[in-house]
């Protein structure tokens, strides 16, 4: 990942937070004074470098971890806005990335019972819950959407 790609990545993340959604190639091209095709080529390199995840078959972002560009079962209220997270880990990551307290709304993956977790000063208010990761770390990026 060269310096230009890191710059593109950081701009893309900044736009995600400013817009409250994934930026399009056109949004990003305007912001970086480039062309949509050049932005897309850069995003493809960042996807290959696991710096973001593109939606297959489109010219759109799927994940700018911990943020999700598509609706998921993990909703997070942080910095006066609702976000979608890619998974439970990312749900806690949104408040961490924004450096703010957050509220996570999710559900038990087994029974579906709703969970509402307040994270204050980096600590969840319910310490009885458990996190299960099915895929070993070495395999996370084999299929990051499944992971």
């Amino acid at each position, binding site marked *: *990942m060269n310096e230009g790609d*890191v710059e593109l*990545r*950081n701009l893309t*993340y*900044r736009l995600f*937070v400013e817009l409250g959604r994934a930026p399009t190639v056109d949004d990003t091209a305007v912001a970086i004074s480039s062309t949509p095709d050049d932005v897309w080529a850069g995003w493809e390199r960042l996807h290959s*470098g696991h*710096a973001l995840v593109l939606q297959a078959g489109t010219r759109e972002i799927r994940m700018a*971890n*911990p943020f999700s560009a598509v609706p998921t079962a993990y909703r997070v209220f942080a910095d006066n806005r609702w976000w979608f997270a890619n*998974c*439970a*880990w*990312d*749900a*806690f*990551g*949104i*408040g*961490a*990335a*924004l*450096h703010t307290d957050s509220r996570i709304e*999710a*559900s*038990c*993956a*087994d*029974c579906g*019972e709703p*969970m509402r*977790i307040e*994270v204050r000063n*980096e*600590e*969840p208010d*319910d*310490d*009885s*819950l*458990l*996190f*299960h*990761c*099915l*895929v*070993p*770390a*070495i*395999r996370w990026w084999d299929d990051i959407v499944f*992971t």
Partner: protein
Amino acid sequence: MNLFRSEEHITNWLGTRNAGTTIPVTKLGELAHAWWGDRIDPNWQPRTRAQNQAILNDLGLTDPFWSLSEAVGSPTKLRPSRSP
């Protein structure tokens, strides 16, 4: 990567699948802050695999399940585990 109410719910959810690893949500919170805390920093730089592994190690996530390197944690050797 999911949340559960209890170990029993994890077992129910797994069914016949092999377990991965389970940590308390408090540990997940620590992990998330260590892992994602720099993600929107304007001068963010990519971390090396060693740096990522150090974050996991520092949190006590030293089980082979959490190994980011093939040499250390071959998944064929993994067993269901519960990390601290």
